């Protein structure tokens, strides 16, 4: 590793550890630990949401997909962005009104039972872990490629950092790491976009011409069909992307980190501006990568295209810019995995330890201790899994988490908040069926089953890489059918809940 890389890397580690030290002194209550006591402003939370959301898959994966496949790569960006409207309009404010720390709080405000609490905790835990482990594996591989550190050391460094942020600094440290990551990331991609433009003398026609020369697709690069050849695949992916965000626990628990619904709305609006601007710039960088480096070289270095941004940085700005972009990639990864650890920690320590094991009777100190130990345990488990899965392709799990979230959490959340006839039986049916269907379709699909490169060396039972089109309706349908197998709640009980969910006016049924 050269000295420039090392200095950037150390600078990030020191800065984030200082933030954690500062946050650790403040995180002495559960409210501080889980939600930063609602102390963030809407703009800060918006930056943190963007930091939580823009993973290495977004930063490096989308740039790579655009560089290699053109228009189809950009379809991901659209789905990721528009999904925030669903969060804003349908779930963000009710979640803030009903919950305290976890997603389980929201559902249990209407169906207060241990069974329901278990279901929500398990589903949040599975989704967060499903997202966390592949991020760690991808991070280890990426850092190994970028900084030339071996895989084990990469995973250990990232795993230790994420655990330290969460265990000592809680949500406050995690949020500020994410805020700084977003600012650095936006600065980095803006700089790279400017350099691309300056290299072509701000002549967009010249860039388009160079892209056409650089890619193997010619003019077809600018049209759909290079990545997705099946119509059902495009629709399925679009469906999972637009509904998935509204089921992701690590994004939804961020609605608790601000003081009121005005700030909740401001958070999401800020996040959409940041994420949207970011995706615009990834388009320029993707075009720049194929224009200045060429398809073949990009593909030869890494067939997934994940190294398109770092390669472009090296091409345009030499080792210094490469070191800077690599440092940004590193910050991107640690900020996202820290968000996932805190989400999994909340599901376990708040829902399972406090509510189920201790029946809501543990003290602040006991809860805080449990949360810190949980964060440590999750960190260790995730690192061990990531080390064991070094040679297994698990990166596809990142995009499939959206399908799992959209088919299990989202239907239950939506019906709980809006449907009068919905009941606990429907919620449990929807959750179990959505979770099992999406996981089964994933296991029986071409990602896992492939005669040559799959985990299971057999022909897949179906050919869909994105099974959302079947899994998501299954989650919704089972929730609906399940609801008709049990009696609905009395009108006044539902109305009190509904009023609290949509106005914040406490009807006295469930104290936060």
């Amino acid at each position, binding site marked *: 590793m050269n000295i420039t890389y090392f200095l950037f890397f150390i600078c990030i580690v020191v800065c984030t550890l200082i933030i954690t030290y500062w946050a650790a002194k403040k995180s002495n209550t559960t409210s501080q630990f889980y939600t930063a006591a609602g102390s963030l402003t809407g703009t800060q939370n918006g930056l943190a949401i963007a930091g939580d959301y823009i993973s290495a898959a977004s930063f490096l994966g989308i740039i790579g997909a655009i560089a290699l496949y053109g228009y189809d790569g950009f379809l991901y960006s659209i789905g990721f962005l528009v999904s925030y409207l669903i969060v804003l309009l*349908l779930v963000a404010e009710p979640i803030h009104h009903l919950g305290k720390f976890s997603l389980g709080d929201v559902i249990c405000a209407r169906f207060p039972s241990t069974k329901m609490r278990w279901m929500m905790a398990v589903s949040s835990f599975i989704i967060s872990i499903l997202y966390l482990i592949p991020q760690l594996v991808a991070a280890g591989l990426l850092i190994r490629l970028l900084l030339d550190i071996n895989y084990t050391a990469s995973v250990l460094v990232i795993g230790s950092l994420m655990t330290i942020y969460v265990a000592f600094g809680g949500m406050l440290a995690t949020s500020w790491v994410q805020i700084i990551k977003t600012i650095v990331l936006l600065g980095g991609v803006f700089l790279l976009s400017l350099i691309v433009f300056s290299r072509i003398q701000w002549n967009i026609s010249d860039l388009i011409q160079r892209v056409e020369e650089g890619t193997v697709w010619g003019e077809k690069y600018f049209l759909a069909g290079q990545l997705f050849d099946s119509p059902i695949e495009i629709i399925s992916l679009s469906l999972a992307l637009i509904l998935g965000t509204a089921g992701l626990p690590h994004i939804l628990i961020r609605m608790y980190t601000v003081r009121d619904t005005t700030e909740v709305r401001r958070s999401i609006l800020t996040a959409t501006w940041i994420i949207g601007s970011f995706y615009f710039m990834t388009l320029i960088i993707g075009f720049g990568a194929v224009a200045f480096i060429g398809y073949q070289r990009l593909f030869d270095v890494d067939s997934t295209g994940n190294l398109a941004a770092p390669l472009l940085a090296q091409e345009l700005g030499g080792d210094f810019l490469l070191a800077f972009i690599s440092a940004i990639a590193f910050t991107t990864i640690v900020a996202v995995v820290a968000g996932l650890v805190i989400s999994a920690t909340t599901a376990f320590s708040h829902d399972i330890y406090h509510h189920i094991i201790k029946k809501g009777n543990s003290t602040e100190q006991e809860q805080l201790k449990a949360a810190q130990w949980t964060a440590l345990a999750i960190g260790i488990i995730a690192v061990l899994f990531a080390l064991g899965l070094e040679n297994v392709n698990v990166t596809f799990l990142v995009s499939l988490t959206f399908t799992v979230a959209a088919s299990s959490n989202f239907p239950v959340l939506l019906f709980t908040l809006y449907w009068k006839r919905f009941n606990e039986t429907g919620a449990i049916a929807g959750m179990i069926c959505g979770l099992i269907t999406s996981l089964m379709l994933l296991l029986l699909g071409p990602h896992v089953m492939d005669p040559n490169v799959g985990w299971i060396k057999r022909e897949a039972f179906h050919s869909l890489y994105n099974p959302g089109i079947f899994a998501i309706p299954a989650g919704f349908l089972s929730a609906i059918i399940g609801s008709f197998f049990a009696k609905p709640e009395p009108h006044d009980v539902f109305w009190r809940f509904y009023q609290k969910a949509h106005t914040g006016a406490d009807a006295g049924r469930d104290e936060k």
Partner: protein
Amino acid sequence: MEKLFHQYIKKKQRFVLVSVICIFLFYFSLPLSLIFFPQLMKNNKDFHIFFAWGYAFLQFFMTWFIGWVYTRKAKYWDELLERMKQEEKR
């Protein structure tokens, strides 16, 4: 008072429902157009850029626009709700 709350929630939900339907129609018409009207999406004579790109960029502006409209509306609803709560106290 409960009647007023009812009306308030109904008004808000109507706006949300209409917006969500519009978002879904606008969002899914992009992949559906790519599948069913590929020639239209490849058209770049009338718009200088491929229609597919123009429509993709419009999705960004749609997101920002609806987000902005909803935030403005919600501010008005918050004030309305606050007035209702004050009246209830009296």
